[in-house]
């Protein structure tokens, strides 16, 4: 129990971030109209692609002769980049479609 409390104490700053970001996430999107549900989901999907930063860090820290870590890390960088690039491009294409509607009216 003491050790758990110690771990929490050591990471207090990160836990603050965590809690505040959770509340912020709820707040930020609470008024979204129904037609934007899918683009918003897609945009959020691209944002969690930030995990690719972790993959890059793993690769930068890996020792050059640790081939297992390098191979797995390489894969992680590829799929992470797929998530980021694919996510943003798909979202942009969806929203492009939306934009035309107000012009007609």
């Amino acid at each position: 129990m003491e050790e758990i409390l110690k771990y929490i104490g050591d990471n207090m700053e990160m836990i603050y971030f965590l809690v505040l970001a959770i509340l912020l996430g709820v707040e930020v999107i609470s008024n979204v109209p129904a037609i934007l549900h899918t683009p918003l989901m897609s945009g959020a999907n691209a944002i969690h692609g930030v995990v690719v930063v972790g993959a890059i860090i793993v690769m930068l820290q890996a020792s050059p002769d640790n081939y297992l870590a390098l191979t797995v890390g390489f894969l992680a960088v590829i799929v992470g980049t797929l998530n980021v690039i694919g996510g943003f491009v798909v979202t942009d294409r969806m929203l492009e479609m939306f934009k035309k509607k107000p012009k007609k009216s």
Partner: protein
Amino acid sequence: MSLNLLEISYLIASLTFIIGLKMLSHPDSARKGNLIAAAGMLIAIVATLTIFQEFDSGKMLNYGLIFGGLVIGTIIGTVMAKKVQMTAMPQMVSFFNGMGGACAALIAIIEYQHHQHTTVTGFDGELLVMLLGLLIGSVSFSGSMIAYGKLEGKIKDKALPMNQAINMILLGAIVVLILYQLFAESTPLEFYILLGLALVYGVLFVMPIGGADMPVVISLLNSFTGMAAAFGGFLYGNKAMLTGGILVGSAGTILTILMCNAMNRSLTNVLLGAFGGTAGG
């Protein structure tokens, strides 16, 4: 000095994620919001590449692989996203979401290899964060792939007999396995069993859910991947990953509930609904 620059870049990235999400929830500013978030992402990636570690010529191979991975991912991602039909967008989102989940799980696997060389007595918070990242990342990966396959029409709705009960048992086994690793001992065997169970759970979780409900499930898996990314951020003390991940985690959860409301259904109804015969939907 340079480390501060890195932190500032992450701060800017986090801000763009928040502003981007906010703008994405209004029709007029949505497209700009997407671009702002993308710019922030670029800043975070470039900053990590250039500032995180002094350039070390002994690590040429690492740098080469990183750039290779970034280029390959960019090319494949752009081509896939540009070519996809407008009607096939949801499965594309699901596919990319699964890729993010896979990325989080792969990171956990490498970090576990490193972690093995350190001995920690008592409660091991780092291991817990790693295991959760692995678990949620792999569930999100396999679940998203099934959702993708279903929407593409490659996989039919199929529920195992007693699917819900099997899922519960699997989930129980996963919890026990995590607790065992935390409080008894953690060997690679248990770690990889956990990986396997998580992948199977993702498949069984999505399998019985009807096709019409798939967007809700994708949104849920989306928030899972966000959480997995946040666990990665926790592991490295990386605030861009933490805020980006957890924002999507919480916003995604709310969005999932909003989507259910828009269909006049509750989340439990969607997740267990296949039992009531909506599987044909």
